[in-house]
């Protein structure tokens, strides 16, 4: 065989393979191995160890740019929570426009599938200006902090869930916060989780993730999900591979393709070099 040719494979073949590798998982996630990190496992177990029917506070504190990384986390969390018949109170304090909509659509999708009802099993309180002050108010009285309405402006009195859950201090069992900046995990830690001694977990964009490692080690965060990768690992633990895993499959296939081509190119390079040497002598 003429090994040299490996150096000059038609580049379009590489493009087609890359396209196919990225496309296949979009249609059907294959579930290539993803090593699950300790931090992700800890998130899953913290939630799994809650008693059935607990109340989980979800704050989707994200903007449009990082949303693709963090959305799959919310979907997977909703699945795990509803499976345990937990109730969800959702907020989104980072971004006024996309945050509340994203958290609604992603929880709603799972809720409809699992037969959970808005206002009974879960509710979305949306965005409030001045996050710190709102958090402090909600610790004692959620309705007061939310100004008495949900994200669409509907009065909270008419939702049964709000009869059961009055304050974070007495009624909420766990905080799940996604974070891309401020307001984010640090505010929830400072104003809610630490003073009330509530478990705090969630996920962060990949760029922020390395900066909060020491909180995970110190136990102030009960594990944390890092970027799309963390979301994919969490989806696997929950047993429902979705957007995160699809993205990971695509990335794995893409990276492997590049490396394979890189090796082929080098085989070709050395074959050509050897041949040149033989010709010289």
């Amino acid at each position, binding site marked *: 065989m003429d090994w040299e040719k490996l150096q000059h494979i038609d580049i*379009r073949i590489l*493009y087609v393979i890359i396209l196919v590798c990225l496309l296949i998982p979009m249609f059907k996630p294959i579930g290539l191995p993803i090593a699950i990190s300790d931090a992700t496992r800890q998130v899953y177990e913290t939630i799994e160890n809650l008693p059935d029917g607990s109340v989980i506070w979800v704050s989707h504190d994200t903007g449009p740019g990082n949303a693709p990384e963090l959305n799959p986390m919310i979907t997977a969390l909703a699945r795990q929570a509803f499976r345990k018949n937990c109730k969800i109170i959702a907020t989104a304090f980072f971004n006024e426009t996309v945050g509340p909509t994203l958290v609604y659509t992603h929880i709603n999708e799972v809720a409809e599938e699992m037969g959970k009802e808005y206002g009974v099993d879960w509710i979305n309180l949306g965005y409030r200006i001045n996050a710190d002050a709102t958090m402090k108010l909600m610790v004692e009285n959620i309705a007061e902090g939310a100004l008495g309405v949900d994200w669409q402006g509907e009065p909270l009195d008419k939702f049964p869930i709000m009869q059961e859950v009055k304050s974070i201090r007495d009624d909420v069992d766990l905080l799940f916060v996604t974070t891309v900046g401020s307001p984010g995990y640090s505010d929830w830690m400072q104003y809610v989780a630490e003073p009330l001694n509530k478990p705090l977990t969630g996920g962060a964009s990949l760029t922020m993730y390395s900066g909060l490692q020491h909180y995970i080690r110190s136990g102030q965060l009960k594990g944390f999900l890092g970027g799309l990768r963390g979301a994919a690992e969490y989806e696997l633990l929950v047993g429902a591979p979705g957007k995160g895993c699809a993205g990971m499959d695509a990335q794995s296939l893409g*990276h492997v393709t590049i490396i394979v081509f890189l090796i082929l190119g080098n085989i070709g390079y050395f074959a050509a070099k050897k041949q040149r040497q033989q010709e010289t002598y």
Partner: protein
Amino acid sequence: MTVEQLGNISASICIIMAWSYLWKEDNPLYNLAEHLLVGIATGYGIGYTILVQLVPRINDEIIGNQHYSLIIPAIIGCLIYCRFFPGYEWLSKICMGFWIGYGAGNHLAFNPATYMPQVFDTFINLTNINNILYFLIVIVVIWYFIFTVRKDTPVRSGASQLGRYALMIAFGSAYGSITMAYLSLIIGQLEIIFRDTLHLIK
């Protein structure tokens, strides 16, 4: 058909036209996309500048707020058109001179405020192996960029070579770590075609 659907179809066609370059560099689809883009970008730029910048500037600021000093830069800016009138080209160089001088002065006046903190950030304590390595790499890389000192002793040339090796590791790792983000760009475009337009995936 809704505007959104029409938009998605047009978006998908645009993607295919742009990506056709990968298949064959010289092809009519790509040429069309390229010239459309260049034309629209410039045309829109004219409209945008007039409506969003010039009209408010003249109406509200210069006339409304009586900020008449702005007439001077307006004249300087217009001088650039002198280059299209033979014999008066030299006037346009006043405008270029203002731009170049402003750019240089601005750089020298404002950039040090971002440069010095980077120097400060390099003051780390050498108590662990990572910090020692970090310090050594910074020093050999700075040494590599010294141009006019003769690097004729083994130590001097060796340090410079080490600096280059460190740079190669830095560049390689930067390349490897960005691949994921760039592959995601393709995924984003594929979603427009297969999810938003063709509804083949959820």
